[in-house]
């Protein structure tokens, strides 16, 4: 699988994602500079966390109009996989590749801690390594992760099955007002995908929870699942041409 990690000025989780793709899941990974106008033939494009353009104007707003994003949009339109993590989620919202918007966290403070998220569907390449209902412990680090949209749009999102991850409390309940939903996201939404299911984004950082030595491994199955799904697609393509 060929993976590209986009580097915007101010991206700061780019090395972490690259490390997991390259050294933990042993994939062909490279960095994609924000000024390029293609995605270098990558199967998977990751928009990593960080503070692209210093979060000036609005988190993700300036990155959303950088040259590489036109190529990412093209890649997504062609059915290519796009994963947005944290700032990557914010960028995909600003670019209109995913619906909704982010507000400041409910208590207006940066939130750096572990959260629990529940996997809502596992028929996506991003979540095929998990069970539906499985609760993952993952780190978060953001000031604007309070997902919002109109009630009608949220209903539509739910009806389409586009909610992929929800924050849950210790007993596994995804209550919007509950203790598990620290940033105050509407309907406790932690991650969503597009209608087609090839663009997915979440606020927590699976790449920081993918190695035994760090004592947290719940994020690894996301990358392993992506590798598995792409390897399977590649194999079937090879089979079809021969």
């Amino acid at each position, binding site marked *: 699988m060929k993976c590209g990690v986009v580097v915007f*000025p*101010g991206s*700061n*989780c780019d*090395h*972490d994602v690259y*490390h*997991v793709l390259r*050294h933990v899941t042993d994939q062909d990974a490279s960095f994609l500079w924000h000024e390029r106008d293609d995605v270098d033939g990558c199967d998977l494009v990751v928009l990593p*966390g*960080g*503070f692209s*353009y*210093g*979060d*000036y104007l609005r988190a993700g707003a300036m990155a959303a109009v950088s040259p590489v994003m036109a190529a990412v949009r093209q890649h997504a339109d062609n059915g290519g996989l796009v994963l947005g993590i944290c700032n990557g989620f914010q960028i995909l919202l600003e670019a209109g590749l995913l619906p909704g918007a982010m507000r400041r966290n409910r208590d207006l*403070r*940066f*939130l*750096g*801690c572990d959260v629990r998220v529940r996997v809502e569907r596992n028929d996506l390449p991003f979540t095929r390594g998990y069970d539906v209902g499985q609760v993952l412990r993952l*780190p978060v*680090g953001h*000031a604007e992760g309070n997902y919002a949209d109109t009630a009608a749009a949220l209903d539509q999102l739910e009806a389409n099955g586009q909610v992929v991850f929800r924050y849950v409390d210790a007993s596994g309940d995804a209550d919007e007002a509950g203790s598990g939903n620290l940033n105050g996201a509407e309907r406790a939404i932690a991650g969503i995908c597009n209608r087609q299911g090839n663009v997915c984004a979440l606020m927590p*950082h699976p*790449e*920081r929870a*993918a*190695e*035994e*030595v*760090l*004592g947290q491994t719940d994020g690894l199955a996301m990358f392993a699942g992506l590798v598995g799904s792409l390897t399977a697609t590649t194999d079937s393509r090879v089979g079809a041409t021969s």
Partner: protein
Amino acid sequence: MSSGGDTADGFAENVALTRRRIKMEPVVDLELALEHGLIDEEFDQLRSFLGREPSYTELGITSALFSEHCSYKSSKTWLREFPTSGPRVVQGPGENAGIVDIGDGWVAAFKMESHNHPSYIAPYQGAATGVGGILRDVFTMGARPIACLDSLRFGEIDAPRMRHLVDGVVRGIGDYGNCVGIPTVGGECGFHASYNGNILVNAFALGVCRREGIFRAEASGVGNPILYVGSRTGRDGIHGATMASESFDEESEAKRPTVQVGDPFTEKILLEACLEAMRTGVVVAIQDMGAAGLTSSCFEMASRGDAGFELDLEKVPLREPALTPYEMMLSESQERMVVVASQGGEATLEEIFKRWGLQVVPIGHVTATGRALLRYDGDVVADMPVSPLVDEAPVYERPVREAGAQDPAAVPECEDPTGALRTLLGTPELGSKEWISDQYDSTVRSNTVVGPGGDAAVLRVKGVRAGLALTSDVNPSYCALDPREGGRQAVAEAARNLACVGALPIGLTDCLNFGNPENPAVAFQLRECIRGMAEACQVLEVPVVSGNVSLYNETDGDSIHPTPTVAMVGLIEELGVNPGWCREASFVESQDRLVLLGSDDLEYGGSSYQRLLLGAESGRPPRVDLQAERQLGDLLRAGFGSGLVKTAHDISNGGLAVALAECTFARSLGCSVRVQGGVGSLFSESQARVVVAVAARYLDSFLELASRSTVDAREIGEVGGDRLRIGFDGGELDEQVDVLREIWRTALPKALDL
């Protein structure tokens, strides 16, 4: 935001305006020199270095170089007592950061610096730029920063402005470090009335690089171009170094313009661009423009390389029009670096910095004259010898007034130890610091094995077998009561905290925060703390590789408690060999046995119990037995290394009761313990003590291991249940873990009225 210098017309206009402003500069005389913080003899010294009267620019430059902050003039004599070498030391004090070898061809560069005065005046920007400065000190050595610690000392929470200061400092540190993407993995935070008018913000950063990738800030190669990179220069921070070398008074508020304004986004791209530039082979030397900006960076680089330099200051990129040479040389605008490139290397560097969207401008070159020749549009504005100003800056051995020895403090009669524990855990001092650490990103860069809250943070380093452990410690109350013992204790506690995660100390950096050194009582504290630290460093074999001194921390004549903050780095031989260990100072399994290491002498002088429950601070602080500390550390490392020890937690502020309570919180797992002696054993702060949890089947082996050392080891109870129970002669402390945890967890938010 424009300097007006970007077009030919704008440039000419700017030069004309600047020339008019230069003409209006005051005539230099003794009075003006005194206003600049120099004393008579220092002004004479400057005149003899020059052989003539100094220009206004020269006076400004000298006031910065001779300031306490840059020259260490009141502390240098005593700092020489620190041991600075050792088998792992690659770079000792004198560079932008110290460096130690961490194995497999890798090194760690680290340093701690204070940003106390700016943080009191403007807490958000002061703290933020403190983080920015220390990160630049690390990456200027060629090392990529991978972790920060912050040691914070606030006043009483009800003191004027204090909640505002706490909030601003925490936000400032968080917003800066989070944006640059360097995890804040630990630190400490204390509250004491002595900081009511002068808080302390000490920021530590550590970076790693390959041994062959180290850069030093030594200007060399006659004719090599000097490049200015990073943000443009404004008027912020002018005379910051001088301000940091003065006491506070009612007029300090008026100094707000001398506090710099930080931009973490620029820092992040500057970091990436500099590390990339350093890999090209055309960077000869590099240094950030920290305190005293362009002045200290150029003078220090030239001095280390026995070189001179020439600058054409009209080329300096400006953020606002008509800065005079004086202002340019003293501005502390943030996120700027000076690079000495090899001749012909300019184009390579220009390509890199421009790609990252940063200024890169040749402003001068290295000379062999040993002099600093500064011109503005062709006119010489300063022509000074480099080496005398940097290396022959004044050094004073300040007169000291010795304080008398203290008697031991009385052991308090405590009738309700359970209530006392509840009270202690509910103070901001001993309560959870999660409210702070949750505002910091502690896991970015995906190296954090143990983050904030444990005895020491633990990091893996990609490509290195060993793990790194980091901690910062000092007990200002102990230092106030007995500075020698307090200095020893700071080093000993840091080493003990590292041992509690199985790490061997390999180096330390410090921030020596004291009051006015011209006050003989303060000078005594400074000397004694340094001597105590040096003694501990000798016995524990920990070299001092970098550090910082912050003096004149006083307001209207009242000095802060002596606060020699120690940040120590340790090595865990092979990380991840035994993943069953819990390095987080938390009980993990019922029926694990608890062993108390070390012995108790019922010491209460300067203790948390005395301060927080009795409102006193008196008597002799706990004695430090350095040999005992050394033995204890060796035993803990052997215990971890052989897989016998599961959890270890240092007994420090609040004594055994607080230490045990802290171990119960993470997993709501209580314990049942019985101690020898009366109720005094619960809160005594005798040193060289650690509580250890071992699996029942390993208890005998561990006690056997301990018996081969001189460390006193006694089984005191076991893990289990949902209560913390500590029996003693004449009674029992008994409370539900959940009740204690709630008090502890909400202590700081409650104190902040949140």
